[in-house]
Each structure stands twice: as C-alpha cells, then as structure tokens.
C-alpha cells in the first residue's frame, strides 16, 4: 500500500525510540518517548522522522543519552534541529546503531522462543487452545493464566482495558486498574511472560502469550511485544478504523510498521474478522469476512509476514435459532480453511447470541468446539458460558476447557467421517459465500478500498478517510525521511 510507505506517524516514530531502548515515563506516567517525539514535532516536525533530530542532538552532546535527552525535552530545555550533510549522515548512523541493538534483542527473543519450543515442546495437537484473562489487574491475571495453562490452555491472551486503544501513549509499569481488561505495558508483558515460562516449564509445554497491537500505539506495542517475547498479537488491517474510528491513513501506516516488527519477531498475528459478525449479521456478512481475510493476507505478505504467521480470524456468530445454523457455520469455516490452507486460522466462539442462559451457552460453545474440530481450525479461542454476563470467572475458564477437552477427545476424530457432498448444503453455501466475496472484491477494486471502508462495507461502519482519531499524528514523509528501524526491518539487517 502506497499510503503506508509515504507517511509516518507519531507512534511509528516513538516505536523507533523504544527500539533504541528508551523506556520509562514522567511522574504523570507520560512516557519519555512521547515527550521526545512531541518535542521533535513541535520544533522540527516529524515528516523527516525523529531519527535525525534526536541522534543529531545526542551527537551534538545535548545530552549523554536518550533518556536524559527525553527528560530535558520534556522541560523544554533542548533545542532540536534537522541536521544536514555530514551531521545528518552521522546522526543517521548513530540512530541506526541504536535501533540495531533493539532489532538484535528482538532477534534474540525469537531465538529464545525457538529454543524453548524445542525444549518444552509445542502443544500436542491442533487446534491450539487459546484462553483469555481479563481481570484488569495483572496480579489477578497471573494466577488465572497459570490456572488456565494447567487446565489445558496453549495460548493466553491478556485482554486489554477498555479505552487503551485510544490512548496515544503506552502506559508504564505493572497495572491493577484496568476496566474489563488489563493495560498493555512493557512491565505487564514481562511479568506475564515470566509467569507463563514458569508454568510452561512445570507443564512441559511452551505456553504462548498474546496481546493487542491495535489502536493508536500499535507500532510501539508491536515493538514491546517483540522485545518481551510475546508470541501472537491481535493485529488487523481495519479493526482500528471500523471499531475505534481511528483515521484510516494512520491505521495503514501504523499497521505496516507493526507487521514488519511481527514478521521479524516471529509473532503470529490474529486478525479481527470475528468483530464484523458481532455488529453485522453473520449470514448476510459472511463474505465480508472472506474479503477481509484476503486483505489481511495481502497486507501481511506485503509487510513480510510468512504464511505460518497469518492467524486469520473468523467466528461462530450465526443466530443459533436459524435452521441449519451449525451447518452454515461449518460451510463458512471450511471455506476459510480451504482458501488459506497454510495459515493458522483463529476460530472465535459465539458471543453475540450468547445470553444469560449459561446452560444453553455451554452447549453452544460445545458445538463451536465441534465445528472447530471438524473443519481443522488451528487456534481455538475458547468460549465462555458467561459471555453475556461478565468477563470470565476462573470457573468459567475451567468449565470451558473441560468442554473443549470433551469435544476434542470424544469427537475430534469425526473429521474422518465428515464429507460434505459437492452438491449438498454445506458446499453449496460455501460456494455462494465465495461468489459474494469475489463480487465485493471486484467492487472494491473499482471503487477503491478507502471508499469501501467509507461506505460501511465492513461491520456496517462508515469511516471516511479524512476523519477519525489520530489523524493529527500522521505526517506525509518529506524527502530524506529517515527511520533506521524501518530500514533494518526491510533489509533484514541486524546493524
């Protein structure tokens, strides 16, 4: 996507500083990376990238190190400029050295993961069992995550607090005050990673950790994920636009950078097609899932992600009262499976049609699990019977795992017997969805993708390209734009 190569954003620039090792925040918990990027923006503008002004200042001896520079910039006592000629070359080299250190840490983390997976082992079978914790308090999340791993979870996702996606900074430190989720912070990542490594050792199974590279700070969070060895990240090319009203250009730029980091870090992305089906009707909108998957695949490949890193999403969200609803689910799930044979598809449970009837919900989740087994899904996000009531209780998770275990052990092999005939209900439906997806793609090609998003094609949300949150943080790159993080990632270089 051309847009992404011709623009930068405050968050991409902050991500560079994070890669170069700048951490911490002021007393009001505003991160130093924000102060420094803001100072560059105010004094020079970010269209050339912050690399040159920042490392020029360091080379000039304005401060002994990045942190001090950022602290000084916060109090307005640093003068930044756009270096030229040899100054520019020197600043660029220094910046590249600094960023290289970060990239190498990410590489080390990736090697560490490979080692641990080799030593401890991958989950014994597909689908991987993916469970969420969402207490808002990292110190409650940790024991719950461990309990979940002991109960059979292969992947733990720490759900993020509401509102974080619209914060234009990444909070700092261990946090206990999230709403319906826990803040994504470097320290929380570290704490949970350590806890899961511990329990993984105990269980003899590498437990993967997931968070969200999404919202206004997607590039920075992706960077932190790489630095702290997270294994999967929610990362969708349109989610922020559609569901958080984030400006489309901001999103595409941030998106590309974060995906480059994920590619480098060996992180599997999880895309968010499930979300469309919570707002639009899962039968009528089935083809939008397919189209979005194709788009997510396209952008992901463009950013360097391999097939095995494409956790394309889809979901079991058809109204269960609809006749043949389960077979419709199978048709949709099979379609995704066949279109993306090498992608680790992520299969999301029913949420929209879950009600306070927890017994019915438990049954529905069982059939969701069965559909996952029958259609060979790769990552199974485990549904909770209390979906319509509360964020998951400890016991909900335990019961949910028991549900998965029963279905997989007792009926998982049923795929041997599952052969939808060519002209039967399932294959016919899958062909129909595919045809609708192709139609829609044709229309998008004709009208342009930003127009399609603007028109409410996905999840019924209309998002024009020149509106939305975070637009102020976008800048068209100037000639001579420098960002050594991007360079290193694109070149695959280490220094």
């Amino acid at each position, binding site marked *: 996507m051309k847009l992404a190569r011709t623009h930068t954003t405050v968050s991409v620039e902050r991500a560079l500083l994070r890669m170069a090792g700048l951490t911490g925040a002021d007393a009001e918990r505003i991160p130093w990376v924000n102060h420094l990027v803001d100072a560059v923006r105010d004094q020079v503008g970010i269209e050339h990238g912050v690399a040159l002004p920042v490392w020029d200042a360091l080379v000039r001896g304005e401060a002994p190190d990045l942190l001090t520079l950022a602290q000084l910039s916060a109090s307005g006592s640093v003068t930044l400029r756009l270096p030229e000629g040899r100054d520019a070359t020197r600043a660029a080299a220094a910046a590249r050295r600094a960023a290289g250190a970060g990239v190498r840490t990410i590489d080390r983390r990736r090697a560490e993961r490979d080692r641990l997976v080799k030593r401890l082992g991958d989950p014994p079978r597909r689908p991987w069992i993916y469970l969420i914790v969402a207490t*808002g308090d990292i110190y409650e999340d940790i024991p719950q995550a461990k309990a979940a791993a*002991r109960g059979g979870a292969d992947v733990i996702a720490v759900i993020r607090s509401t509102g974080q996606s619209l914060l234009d900074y990444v909070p700092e430190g261990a946090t206990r005050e999230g*709403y*319906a989720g826990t803040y994504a912070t470097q320290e929380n990542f570290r704490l949970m990673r350590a806890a899961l490594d511990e329990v993984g050792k105990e269980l003899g199974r590498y437990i993967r950790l997931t968070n969200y590279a999404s919202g206004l700070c997607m590039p920075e969070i992706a960077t932190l994920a790489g630095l702290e060895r997270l294994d999967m990240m929610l990362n969708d090319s349109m989610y922020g636009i559609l569901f958080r*009203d984030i400006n489309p250009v901001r999103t595409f730029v941030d998106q590309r950078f974060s995906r480059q980091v994920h590619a480098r870090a060996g992180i599997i992305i999880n895309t968010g097609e499930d979300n469309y089906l*919570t707002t639009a009707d899962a039968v009528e909108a089935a083809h939008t899932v397919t189209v979005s998957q194709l788009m997510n695949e396209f952008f992901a490949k463009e950013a360097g992600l391999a097939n095995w890193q494409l956790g394309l999403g889809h979901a079991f969200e058809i109204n269960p009262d609809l006749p043949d609803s389960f077979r419709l689910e199978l048709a949709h799930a099979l379609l995704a499976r066949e279109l993306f044979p090498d992608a680790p598809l992520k299969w999301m449970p029913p949420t929209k049609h879950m009600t306070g009837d927890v017994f019915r919900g438990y049954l529905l989740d069982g059939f969701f699990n069965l559909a996952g087994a029958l259609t060979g899904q790769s990552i199974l996000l485990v549904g909770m019977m209390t979906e*319509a009531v509360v964020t998951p209780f400890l*016991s909900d998770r335990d019961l949910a795992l028991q549900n998965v275990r029963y279905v997989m052990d007792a009926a998982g092999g049923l795929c041997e017997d599952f052969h939808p005939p060519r002209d039967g209900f399932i294959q016919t439906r899958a062909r129909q969805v595919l045809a609708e997806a192709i139609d829609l793609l044709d229309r998008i090609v004709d009208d342009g993708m930003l127009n399609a998003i603007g028109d409410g094609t996905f999840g019924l949300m209309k998002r024009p390209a020149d509106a939305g949150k975070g637009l102020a943080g976008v800048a068209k790159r100037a000639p001579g734009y420098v960002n050594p993080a991007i360079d290193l990632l694109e070149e695959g270089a280490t220094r």
Partner: protein
Amino acid sequence: MSGAIVRPYGDTTGDGMVQVSFTLPLPHDKRAEGAALQLAEKMGLAPALLVHAKAMGPDFTFFVVYGSVTHLVDVDAVTVVPREFPLLSAKEVNAAIKSPLRRKLLVVGACIGTDAHTVGIDAILNIKGFAGEKGLEYYRELRVVNLGAQVLVPELVERARAERADAVLVSQVVTQRDAHIHNTTQMSAAFREAYPAGTAPLLVAGGPRFDESATAALGVDRVFGKGTTPGEVASFLVHALAPLPAARTP
C-alpha cells in the same frame, strides 16, 4: 396465583429447590466441602446437597450445590416500576411532538467513557431499529445526533449545548468494576454543573445490566435495561418532553 407467598419449584409445589454454583479460594478437600456447605447454609439452603466439587489447580475449588431454600418469596412485596407512560405508535409520537412543540425534538446519543459497545444505542437510534421496531431516526419529528462510541463527558456536554439537545441518551454496556455507574453519575453531574438549574436536557441512560429503578442514584431521568425497544424510548421522550393535552389542562 393462589396467595402472595411462593417458593422456588423443583418438581413439587413448595419444595424450594434451587441450584447454586461458585468457587472458593481453597484447595479441594473435606474442609473446602464443609466451607461450601456452610456458605450454602448461609444462603438459606436447608438441606444443602453438595453434588459436585472440583479442584481447579491447587488453590481453588468449584462447587455445585442443590437444595431447598427456606426463604419465602412475598410476591405482594415486589415493587414493579410500572411504565409511567403510555406506549405510543410512531404516528402518535410524531403527532404529540408536532402540534404542541412546533419543532422537532432534538436527541443526542452516545456511548460514553471508554465503552465502545454501540450496538445497543444504535439499536435505539438507527433507522434499522430493534426487535422489528424502527429506531428514533425514523420518527419524522425527532432529530437524532448519534455521537458514536467512546465519547468523553465534556465533549458530550458541549455537543448537547451546541445542538440545543432536548434529550441526551447515553449507553453503558461494560459493567466490570461498576464502570457503567461511575460513568453515568459523572455524566449527570457534568450536565447539572454545565446548565443552569432546571434547564439541563432530559437525561436517559441505557444498557443491559442497568437496574431500571436506579434513576435517582444515577442522577438521570430514566434508565432503560436489557431488551428496550425504540418505541418505548420514543414514548418516554414524548411523555417527559412534549406537554400532552392532559397535562396542559390545569
């Protein structure tokens, strides 16, 4: 009903049977089972049957208990908030606004705080509507400004003033740590502060976990819970804002 006192019904009138499940932060052993029975007893189950106990790791145990509760339910003591307004058709709503007011009613809607669940408020506002009823946008005499998700309270107050809103409708779906209560009270306080006494727009809060009788505590004029339909909301707006003939006669 034969009399105002009832008890839960398992399979025989008056048997009082209920089912309960919960987790205790105790390792699974006899003591934990005793603790579960103690809790069941405190909840009024007598006798309580502990039918399932399962260790969830070394520190927690999950229990399922059945039993007969000794409590009696006094149906006469139940106070049902009666709908204080008549349900009107779209036609009646439009008529009730048009003749006395001679202008459209202006409604501002938003999902406030960090809550981004717009499906509920959209169900009330958007033409598409809910449960077969068209949303408020469909009403000729209503003008709807839907601010969408994650609207901050100051922003909401400002828009309401700018638009000269007659009514402000806010939605809250996330309830963990009582987020919905905090956000709503903060919102109502901000309106009282920003407007001269008695001139604030009508404040309406809605969401699936609200208690409809909590208006006073929340500082709003009306609360709508799960399953609300647009028609109910429109009827309420007319009731509260459009002085109906009956009300005008002294």
